[in-house]
Each structure stands twice: as structure tokens, then as C-alpha cells.
């Protein structure tokens, strides 16, 4: 069996594609294009099980607008819940501050696990 070409990139793209099917959630995979409130799919962490099969952990950042007040929090939780309802391997949800360029955003970090194989 031969290893799939570009498996890392395809695995990442598949996760992005899954997220982009969620109605009501605007998903960006390029920090240049951010337009909060939205979801930003960060660079994945990959753990190899073999040369063919690997686990990919993707951090999705739900990014809010304005100061992190109650309105912002509820919007972040609403968007995070859309990802949970999509049932695509969400394992962890935690509050965070995301820095894109020099701009800091109130956000939630969502961890999504995927197993990639040939």
C-alpha cells in the first residue's frame, strides 16, 4: 500500500470542508480573511501511528467581536454549539484569547480529533 500524496493537507482540508457545511457558522482557514464573529481553523497537530495512518488534532477558534462581555460570550457559545451539533469529533471547548497579527480577540478553542488513513 502506498502512502496518499498530500495526506496532511487533505486531512486538514477535509476538516475545513466539514466545518463549512455547518449552517450559521462562517469558517475561515486563512487568517488574512477573518471577519468575526466566525470560526478560524488553526494549523493542525499530527501524531503518527504509522507511515500511513495518523491522528490529526485541529484547533478551531471561535472568534468573537468587541470586548469579552456577556453578549460576546453568548455569541461564542452559540457558535461553538453549532460545531457540537455537527458531530464531527469535538472533544474539548475552552475560553481563550486569540492573537491574529497584533489584534487580540475573545475566543473559544475547540479541539477536533480526526483519524486519517489511506
Amino acid at each position: 500500500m502506498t502512502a496518499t500524496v498530500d495526506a496532511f493537507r487533505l486531512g486538514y482540508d477535509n476538516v475545513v470542508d466539514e466545518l463549512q457545511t455547518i449552517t450559521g457558522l462562517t469558517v475561515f482557514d486563512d487568517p488574512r480573511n477573518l471577519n468575526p464573529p466566525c470560526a478560524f481553523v488553526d494549523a493542525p497537530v499530527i501524531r503518527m501511528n504509522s507511515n500511513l495512518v495518523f491522528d490529526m488534532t485541529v484547533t478551531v477558534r471561535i472568534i468573537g467581536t468587541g470586548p469579552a462581555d456577556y453578549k460576546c460570550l453568548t455569541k461564542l457559545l452559540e457558535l461553538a454549539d453549532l460545531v457540537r451539533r455537527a458531530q464531527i469529533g469535538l472533544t474539548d471547548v475552552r475560553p481563550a484569547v486569540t492573537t491574529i497579527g497584533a489584534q487580540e480577540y475573545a475566543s473559544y478553542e475547540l479541539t477536533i480529533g480526526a483519524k486519517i488513513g489511506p
Partner: protein
Amino acid sequence: MFTGIDTAGDLQFNTSVLIPNQVLFALTANDLDRTAAAGTITYTLTCTWVSKADVEDWLGFTVTPASSDDDLLTIAVAAANAYAYRKRQEAGYFDASLGTVPSQDVRLGTIMYAGALYRERGSIDQYASFDPLATGTPTGGSMGQIMRLLGVNRAAVY
């Protein structure tokens, strides 16, 4: 000092005699000399350039009617309208209408200022935020853009 009216009906002044804080008014009667008035002039300006709905559009959410948030938004909108009109007056603009915003840049500046005031509730130098989400953003960070949009401060000559 006002000296009278010429044959064309234009007001005439003696520019070597300066009377500060002078208000000229018409004595609407026949064949009267100039007369000094006594009293106090009061006037109230209520600017309504932007509305709560405008600010809600900018904030990205609507506030619950008849709530404390709604009360605060009403206050913030009134304050921003008054501020925008006064700062532009101080900067030498003659905005013709208190009810119609003079231009769209002024409109956006006023909306942004009202939105910033609303968001600053409970804040002093940084926005009150949930601790794990706090970005440490200082309040008043938008003022540069707001003042550019309003066209103030600029030197004014009277």
C-alpha cells in the same frame, strides 16, 4: 457695534467698537430706535442624527426593550448625538439640521461613539470582560477613528 441699515437693507457695523457676546435681534414695530434688551437667552439643542437601531446594527445585536441595557443604549445614543453636534460646532461646521445627519461619515462616527459608550458600561480604563477571554483592550481605543469620521478636532477661526 451695530450702526444701522443701509439703503440696500444690509446691516452696518462699526468694526472699531467690539461688543463681545452680542446678540442682534429685530424690533418688529414701526419707526423705533435701537433699544437694548434685558434678559437671558436660553436654547436647547436636541440632535437626533442616529438612532438606537443604527447603533444596534453596528453592535451586531439588539437589546431587550424596556431593560437596563435599553435604558443605557438610549443614554449612549443621546450622548453621542449631542457630542457629535457640539464637537462639529466647536470645529466651525455649520450643520443645518439637528434631525438629519450632514453626511455618512458623520453618521458612522456618531454611531461608533454611541456603540463605544454602550460597551464601556462598568469599565474604567479597560473593557470589563470575562477573565479567560479578556484582551486588555483599552476603552476609548476607537476615538481616533471616530474623530476622523466626525471631522474634528480641527482648528476653527471665528
